[in-house]
């Protein structure tokens, strides 16, 4: 086990054998999800499901609608139409209850800027019913995050590591990561994907990750979805995609999105 992954909390399923990427009851689902801002559509009629224990990579260019879907799934944005379901419940109506079982790392770190990581952990520990304070602090140390520096003075990587630590502190069944490697250097990015996400996945934690980093997700995702201009244009198991296209994921993404663009034209 790597250094970073060593501090991870036990997942909901502590037995190591990773379940195959086959759907049981979905841990997360979007049903004909549509989001509009002031009438302008940003997500249209998107439907997909993430089975329990699955790592789902949601890919898309900037503005494709990934973050809006994530905000719907964490109950912070009400869909204009359709539903976002998390652990079998409506993400909008059951947000508070669900957040006890879900960890969220937003695209932009949103922790109170004047608090240091140590004080952030102290604050968050009071907002959850169960919290692994020792593990969280150990994880921050392993990420080499200074504990007493105000959050706004941390580097981008340190902020991301702090947010990830906060998201994992209550041992979530479901982890939602919105472009967690954006702005990270290669070492930090590998730590997130290779060690943390990989380790969590092996423990059976369901993970939804949106990213531009196609190469990194290729090795760990069980299933991928590609968003292009508000629409989900691909939603298949990773193995099936690789088999069908017989190309690296980066090429597949380029081909699928350009084909979708031509189709739309």
């Amino acid at each position, binding site marked *: 086990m790597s250094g970073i992954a060593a501090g991870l909390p036990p997942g909901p399923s502590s037995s190591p054998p990773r379940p195959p990427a086959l759907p049981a009851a979905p841990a997360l689902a979007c049903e004909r999800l549509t989001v509009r801002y002031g009438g302008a559509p940003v997500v249209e009629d998107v439907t997909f499901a993430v089975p329990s224990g699955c790592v789902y990579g949601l890919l898309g260019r900037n503005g494709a609608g990934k973050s809006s879907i994530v905000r719907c799934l964490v109950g912070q944005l009400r869909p204009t139409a359709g539903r976002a379901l998390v652990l079998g419940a409506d993400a909008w109506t059951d947000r*508070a209850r669900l957040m006890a079982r879900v960890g969220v790392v*937003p695209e932009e770190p949103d922790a109170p800027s004047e608090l240091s990581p140590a004080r952030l952990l102290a604050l968050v520990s009071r907002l959850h019913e169960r919290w692994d304070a020792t593990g969280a602090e150990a994880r921050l140390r392993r990420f080499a995050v200074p504990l007493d520096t105000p959050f706004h003075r941390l580097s981008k990587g340190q902020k991301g590591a702090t947010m990830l630590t906060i998201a994992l502190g209550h041992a979530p069944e479901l982890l939602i990561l919105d472009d967690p490697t954006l702005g990270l250097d290669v070492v930090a990015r590998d730590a997130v994907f290779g060690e943390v996400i990989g380790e969590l996945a092996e423990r059976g934690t369901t993970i939804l990750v949106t990213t531009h980093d196609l190469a990194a997700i290729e090795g760990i995702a069980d299933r991928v979805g590609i968003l292009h201009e508000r629409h989900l244009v691909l939603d298949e198991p990773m193995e099936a995609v690789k088999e069908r296209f017989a190309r690296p994921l980066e090429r597949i993404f380029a081909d699928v999105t350009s084909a979708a663009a031509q189709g739309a034209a």
Partner: protein
Amino acid sequence: MSAVAAVIERSQASGARGARLRVALRGLIAIAAREASERAALLGLAVLGALAPFGAPYVGIGDRPFLGVFAAGVMVVAAACLTGSSVIARDLAEGRLGFFLARPLPWWAIWGGKLLAAAVLTLVAGAIVVIPSMLTGDWSLPPTGWWGLMGIPALLALICGVHAAAVGYRSRSGLFAADLALAALVGWTVARTVRSLLAAGVFADVAFVSLGLWILALAFVAGSAAQVARGRADIRRGHRILSVVAWSILAPAVAAYAAWGAWAVRPSPRDLKAVTSVQAAPAGSWMAVAGRLRWPRPQSMMPTLLVDARTDRFVRVAETWDTHGPLFSSDGSQAAWITNVWSGEPRLFVADLRAEAPVARSAPLPVPPGRIVGFALSPDGRDVAVVQVGQTSVFAIGSQKPLAVAPVHVDAYAREVVFATDGHVRTLAGPQDWLAPGVLSLVTIDPATGGYRVSAEIPTRGNPMAEWGPGAERLAIIDHQERRPSLALHDGATGARVATLAEEGTADRLSCTFLHDGRLAVVEERHGVRLRIFRPDGAETSSIEVAPSLAFARAVEVAPGVIAVDLQHFESFDVRATVLVDADAGRIVRIERGLSAAPSRPFAGDPSAATTPANLFVDATGALVKLDLATGERRRLLPRD
């Protein structure tokens, strides 16, 4: 088995709910503590504010008690604005509210924690500033009830109102412009309604202001709660929800207030609950009535109405205390009055009472801006005389130009002016000193020529009170009512003393009233109440003991030759009575308990009022009655059932 399972399931669900509630409350406190600690610098500012009142007087800025309270007020408002504008709105604008929404906390714990921090910080900042003033005895805490009525709703309205404005501003949405437009409309509507109510004598009591503050607080608190509950991390959606909720409370409330205000200032005679003053026209069936209104009309309002006793016709005059009049022409066909006499922007109104549906119409008032201290209508109803502090003017109704202006100084709150039978206008000028001897100048104005002259200088012992007789032919002056009063009768044209009717020190208190035929009824109080009747030449014709004890009496001619002596305290402190006296026969006709003869203040100052026997009385319940002087039977005129 299934029943046991159901019980277990219910128990587990209940336990889970309890756990969630514990987490929510713990989260609420944690969020409040964090918000407060982030803004702790505000308390340092409050400490500086607390010291300011103690240092400022040394550099010549204000006095300590005032500055202490002022600084606390400024601190509370500033703290409320700073915290209200930042606790939620800044998090939203900077995309940080999602941090709390990603925790297992209900919306109310997030919203409540932030609001609690803002309220506590504001109160603590205010307390820090005001506590030194309390310790030095400059200020003390308002009573407990004040906080519920005013303090808490004002604080909530301020914090959440500022929050609403901050959310609107930070949302950068076009809806904010609509908010501002609506706020301007609401502000204008409220200001207009308040102004109209104040002009009508409706003063908001504490309960009413408290209700308004609570509605304001409710609108903004509910709006901000809905914003967090339904808008969550989306600032534009949150702003939209906040606006919809807040305006759906405020707009109907303001509309209802405006509608109530418009309705409240338009009372009719049917709304009268109790008559407080009445004045009959010299002829005809019209009378001016002031009184209190039935609920739900405003209880502080005391409007004056012109009422036709024979029909249901009426004319709304104005609020009573800021109005001179209404006065009637001698045939009762015209009434005139001046409103806003204290505000410096007086307005003249006239009403043609012969019309089928008389209405008040505005007429030019060609006098400079300023307080009106005296007002008279000529017997023919064509001319008006107005006394101001710097001048007395006479003008024809409808004219933009005065007929005559006498630039004489009148230093008094109220000073009678009269139209004499010779067509001249007479008034008394000069200072009205409460204590020192002085001189009253008898000013005669001739509207025909536009000239004026000082006809006489009448020395007074201090605080003179003048009473004009019919046609301004006689003038009675009571000197120094408060201390050893005296009474002298003067010629109205020349000011020459005709007779001294009561020497200084012969009575503890004096009042007098001219009868319609020029005789003078004088009420003397000393170890009892005595009514004395004098002819216009000063000769006494009768003297009757009316009551054996001091009774704060006054006399009114209620029928030709019949004088009602009103006794405020008859037999005992709380018994009012009127003693009816036949002035010709010099004997008491009857005693009526619980009655007070009209005219009564504020109309009693009108010279024509004192010479119009109208047989009108106000009973103990506030009902206006006519009295059968022979039998004592009372006929109720107002309020109408």
